[in-house]
């Protein structure tokens, strides 16, 4: 199963997201303190149908970037384009999933899902049918009339997915959506998201600070460093699709994780070598973005042996 992996897929396809020379500064607390420069001259392109992970430490501007894509804030300079159109404000074409599900606690699950159509005055039989169908897809068919406080953490997240998907967004923006979940639920949600993306192929920009999560989910991982936020490296993930949680135990996955981790850590000891722990590794070439599929398709049994 092939995936449109390169942002520069071709001149004919319009990128789903285009970020050009974006700069964003937050005001300082006092007049003397300079404002914090969250992003400066940041570029990023995301191809249609791509699953892009933004990975970096907190404060590296990844959430700032996502907020600008969602339309919650404006860049001080530069351009943010979604589907070729400048982002001027929030809209249902760009679905946002927050760290917590942010369901409306006074509405039942079904009414939460129907919030979007109702707000746009497009609540008709078709929207209702789609909402019911989506609740079935996310495994909440029996929880339609339940209120958010009656759902478990994972169920709430899935309800939030359904609420966003009912609007048929062209782009999904996720800001560490599983960060607050326990490890077991998080794995379940990652599996759910992989299945979902496999079916719908919506473009996804996914912010995380978890290396494993980024490697498991993304087509590309954009490793960022902070203050101001810059792209440290863009790493292609050549693991075959569809992926499953079991893939995290393969050798190629472990190698990939190491490449990402090294890219992350490179900023902290720039220049003083990245030997240390690994020793041999045999993946010295891995630093550069866009390693060929040769590494990616190493066989799985070997991977498990090494693990």
């Amino acid at each position, binding site marked *: 199963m092939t995936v449109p992996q390169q942002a520069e897929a071709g001149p004919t396809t319009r990128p789903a997201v285009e970020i050009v020379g974006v700069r964003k500064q937050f005001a300082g607390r006092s007049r003397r303190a300079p404002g914090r420069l969250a992003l400066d001259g940041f570029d990023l392109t995301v191809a249609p149908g791509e699953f892009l992970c933004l990975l970096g430490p907190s404060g590296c501007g990844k959430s700032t970037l996502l907020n600008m894509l*969602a*339309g*919650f804030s404006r860049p001080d300079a530069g351009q943010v384009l979604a589907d070729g159109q400048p982002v001027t*404000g*929030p*809209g*249902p074409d*760009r*679905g*946002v999933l*927050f760290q*917590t599900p*942010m369901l*409306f*606690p*006074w509405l039942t699950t079904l009414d939460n899902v129907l*919030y*979007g*159509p109702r*707000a*746009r005055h497009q609540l008709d039989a078709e929207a209702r049918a789609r909402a019911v169908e989506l609740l*079935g897809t996310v*495994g*909440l*068919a*029996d*929880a339609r009339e*339940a*209120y958010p*406080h*009656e*759902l*478990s*953490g*994972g*169920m709430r997240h*899935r309800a939030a997915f359904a*609420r*966003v998907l009912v*609007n048929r967004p062209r782009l999904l923006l996720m800001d560490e959506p599983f960060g607050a979940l*326990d490890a*077991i*639920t998080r*794995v*379940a*949600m990652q*599996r*759910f998201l992989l*299945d979902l993306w496999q079916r719908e192929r919506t473009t996804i920009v996914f912010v995380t600070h978890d290396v494993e999560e980024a490697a498991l989910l993304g087509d590309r991982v954009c490793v960022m460093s902070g203050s101001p936020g810059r792209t440290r490296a863009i790493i292609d993930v050549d693991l075959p699709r569809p992926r499953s949680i079991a893939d995290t135990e393969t050798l190629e996955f472990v190698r990939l994780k190491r490449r990402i981790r090294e890219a992350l850590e490179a900023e902290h000891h720039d220049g003083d070598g990245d030997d240390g722990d690994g020793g041999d590794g045999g993946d010295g070439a891995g630093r550069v973005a866009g390693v060929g599929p040769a590494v990616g398709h190493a066989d799985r049994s070997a991977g498990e042996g090494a693990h």
Partner: protein
Amino acid sequence: MATTSETPTGAAGPAAAPPQLALAAGRTQSFSWRRLAYGLLGLVLAAAIWELVSYLKDDPVILPSVQKTVSTFWHYLFQKYPAAQGKTLWQHALVSGARILAGWAAGVVIGVVVGGVMASIRIVRYVLDPLIEITRPLPPLAFIPLFIVWFGIGETPKFILIIVGVVPVMIIATVAALDAVPPELIQASRSLGASPLWALLTVRLRSALPPIITGMRLAMGGAWTSIVAVELIAATSGLGYVINNAGVNLQTPLVLSGILAISVLGIVFDSLLRLLHRFADPSTR
């Protein structure tokens, strides 16, 4: 927030949902006979102590017995007080209830509007904050002479006096409630396609509604506590008037009857607001 952690299969299977739901339903508070029994026990104990003290004291002016109080209450429900051109306890209660409802409703509207503006416009908040902080600790009683001079001795000063007690409570409750709405909730609404106005009405205000109703309950309690003071102002009717007048005439059983009536009305009004709160906030059902 207690959450049941998800089973690994839960992500895919709708079959995983029903048991979790059942579990969740068990967490919600429900009516408990046991709790009710203990509550009644407390009331009975208090009445027993009252009865004992009145028996030992044996002076109905200082403390009438429970039976005497209850029979007086019953008597004046249908008997006019004072006998000449008076009202029954029922009618007095209606008068007080109407006064409180009018003042409270006006105070709630003013408080919510002012609080809403304060929560939205920073400069307004900066200007009004010290004013509210100064007026809040003042007992409404302190304003009585002033309001009589300003508004005379009709219904107006009584109305204003209740408003003065209600408004600061409602402003503080409204500002706190609106401040507590997570910005992400409004962002979620906007990114689902809501216009700014729709998001304001259906999310910001709606989300602040339960704590505002709690503020309304507090304000209602405050209004009842000030009714006696309010009806000191040249009143000829109302429960506060009954209590004041009966006290002057050393009719202690009637004083206690008036207090009992205020307590009953207060509970009724509060229950209605609690019902409204349950309606507004599903997680308390």
